[in-house]
């Protein structure tokens, strides 16, 4: 094990880290918004809306992310005149935006299922109790449904965030030089796969570790009702 080489590797890979984080953050945020929209369509859209949501989830969860990325990056290039006319060609020309779009569409499918599960975990009795107290509409959503649903969905959502962090590595296949892209190039140049793997893996593990810690703090903060009660005064 060559420590000097590993330090050099670390310095080579580090410039890719902001791009990895940016890809992950952008697509997680946009995917979250899209997931809320899909959930909304499924709930209020009747049978058609539900069918649409189910179809969306089936397509994006059932096929590999890499194929979806290729379909958007290479496939849509075929419709260049049309895209130019609509004025969105600037997006589809850039590998960065294609990666973001693919990651967003993909994570929206998984996230909408997580949100649906969270909403379904709110029991009928709790909603009934709230209605009996005179709450309805937005107030019911804000005070009862959302807090319970968010608390319920948090662990699964945390998993999805970590999966997305790992999924950003696929962007390197469409020429984006984030951490994995730089690592792949370095391996091909130096042929020292093991050392580079250890350094790149350590970078990813460090981010994952930080994210899980943050999620634990959020979880603690969202579940005051589950914490141990102070001993009663006697």
């Amino acid at each position: 094990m060559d420590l000097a080489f590993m330090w050099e590797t670390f310095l080579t890979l580090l410039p890719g880290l902001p791009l990895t984080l940016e890809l992950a953050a952008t697509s997680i945020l946009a995917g979250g918004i899209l997931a809320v929209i899909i959930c909304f369509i499924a709930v209020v859209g009747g049978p058609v809306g539900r069918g649409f949501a189910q179809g969306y989830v089936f397509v994006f969860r059932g096929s590999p992310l890499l194929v979806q990325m290729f379909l958007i990056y290479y496939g849509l290039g075929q419709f260049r005149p049309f895209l130019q006319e609509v004025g969105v060609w600037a997006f589809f020309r850039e590998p960065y935006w294609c990666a973001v779009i693919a990651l967003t569409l993909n994570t929206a499918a998984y996230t909408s299922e997580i949100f649906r599960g969270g909403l379904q975990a709110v029991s009928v009795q709790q909603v009934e109790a709230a209605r009996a107290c005179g709450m309805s509409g937005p107030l019911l959503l804000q005070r009862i449904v959302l807090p319970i649903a968010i608390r319920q969905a948090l662990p699964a959502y945390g998993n999805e965030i970590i999966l997305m962090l790992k999924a950003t590595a696929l962007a390197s296949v469409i020429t984006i030089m984030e951490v994995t892209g730089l690592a792949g190039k370095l391996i091909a140049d130096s042929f020292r796969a093991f050392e580079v793997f250890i350094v790149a893996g350590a970078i990813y593990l460090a981010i994952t570790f930080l994210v899980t810690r943050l999620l634990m703090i959020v979880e603690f903060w969202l579940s005051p009702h589950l914490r141990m009660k102070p001993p009663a005064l006697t």
Partner: protein
Amino acid sequence: MELINGYLTLVGFGETGWGALLLAAAAMTLGVSVCGFLTGTILGSVITFMQLSRYMLLRWLADGYTTVLRGVPDLLVIYLFYFGGSAFLGYLGGLFGYHGFIGMPAFLTGTLALGVVSAAYQSEVFRGAFKSVASGELEAASAVGMRPWPKFRRIIAPLVLRYAIPGLGNTWQLVLKESALISVTGLVELLRQSQIAAGSTRRPFEFYLTAVVLYLIITWASSMTFHRLETRTLRGTRRAL
């Protein structure tokens, strides 16, 4: 209509169609996924044994394995096996006096990478399943005098498999989708074949769309299979829900 006809000649089985090649590539996707999944099952059960062992070192090693392999992008693991394997083969070749480049076979790379990654997921599935085997069943097996191996073969393995089927189904879907990444090593599976076809016909949209549809068919069929397997293994048990 012309559009549809053009598409059908493109992916059809005619003189200029890519249909047969795409189907063969889909078979390759299935092949490498099955090999990787089975490798993962074997390695995963070894890791489960380590996780449940009474020695702290083994437990610690197994936890480290699952943490690392589940926290690192799969693409990196594939690079490790592809380039690392080639370097290792080159070293072996050097021992026998051959000083050229020896490429790691792509199918072997795929099987190993998929196996090593899915082992991390499968070991968690097995561990969860083992936890839900009632301790009374294990005690009963010991009480009738079963030695460890018969106890594993007759009691533990069937029960763990029964509880593990839903989780194994999820892992299988993961492996299937991950197999698309093996295309970077040059193995001609579904994605790579679509790339080749897209490159030589300049019709990427049609071919990647076809690839998506073929992947969807495979994942749909396998989720049906796992569902049937689940109901079959659960006959004879009572469930509250």
